[in-house]
């Protein structure tokens, strides 16, 4: 079985400051991990994914995440927040890399960006 814990339900940052959204996972296998973003009234967009290759993964819009097996973490970061980053972010685990199977979602972190 797998699970995902997003440690913060809400994060607020000022524009131009770093973003850190925290995620811890649990999986019985070697998982694939994803971050998806949902802007208001929009669908889910893939930000980035880890699928057992490089542990530092770069995504769209300047986001990146680092897979740390020893800490079972996959935190999402961005050096400088932009107003357009305000959205809800989901950390997601797929149980076994290389297979097509259901995703398990975290509860989401709502990112607020202030001027």
């Amino acid at each position, binding site marked *: 079985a797998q699970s995902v814990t997003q440690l913060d339900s809400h994060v607020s940052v000022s524009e131009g400051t770093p973003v850190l959204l925290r995620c811890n996972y649990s999986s019985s296998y070697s998982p*694939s991990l*994803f971050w*998806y973003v949902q802007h208001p009234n*929009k*669908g*889910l*967009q*893939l930000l980035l*994914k880890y*699928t057992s290759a490089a542990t530092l993964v770069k995504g769209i819009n300047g986001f990146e995440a680092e897979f740390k097996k020893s800490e079972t973490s996959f935190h999402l970061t961005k050096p400088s927040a932009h107003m357009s980053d305000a959205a809800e972010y*989901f950390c997601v685990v*797929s149980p076994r*890399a*290389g*297979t*097509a*199977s*259901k*995703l*398990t*979602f*975290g*509860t*989401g972190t709502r990112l607020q960006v202030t001027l």
Partner: protein
Amino acid sequence: EAGVTQFPSHSVIEKGQTVTLRCDPISGHDNLYWYRRVMGKEIKFLLHFVKESKQDESGMPNNRFLAERTGGTYSTLKVQPAELEDSGVYFCASSQDLGDLQTQYFGPGTRLLVL
């Protein structure tokens, strides 16, 4: 290339009525998934089709929900009769059958409100 599309975008029905949601996956994607997010909760898996076959339907909440994928192309999810607790956002996703199997591409969702 067209993404995953869902219809309708919104639906408001009364308790006891029937609603059918439709999902068109990305062309050529054999894997099709349904998820839903009930208000205030996390996004949860409902079921997974591989072509026209149900690979995993462990997330279907009860027998009021019926999913079909005749011909292995688009899929429908019917709720009959609808209950208040069925309100939420229903997402569809699809993924390839070769190569990158794990990456699921999501549609914009159908927002269902049962009154």
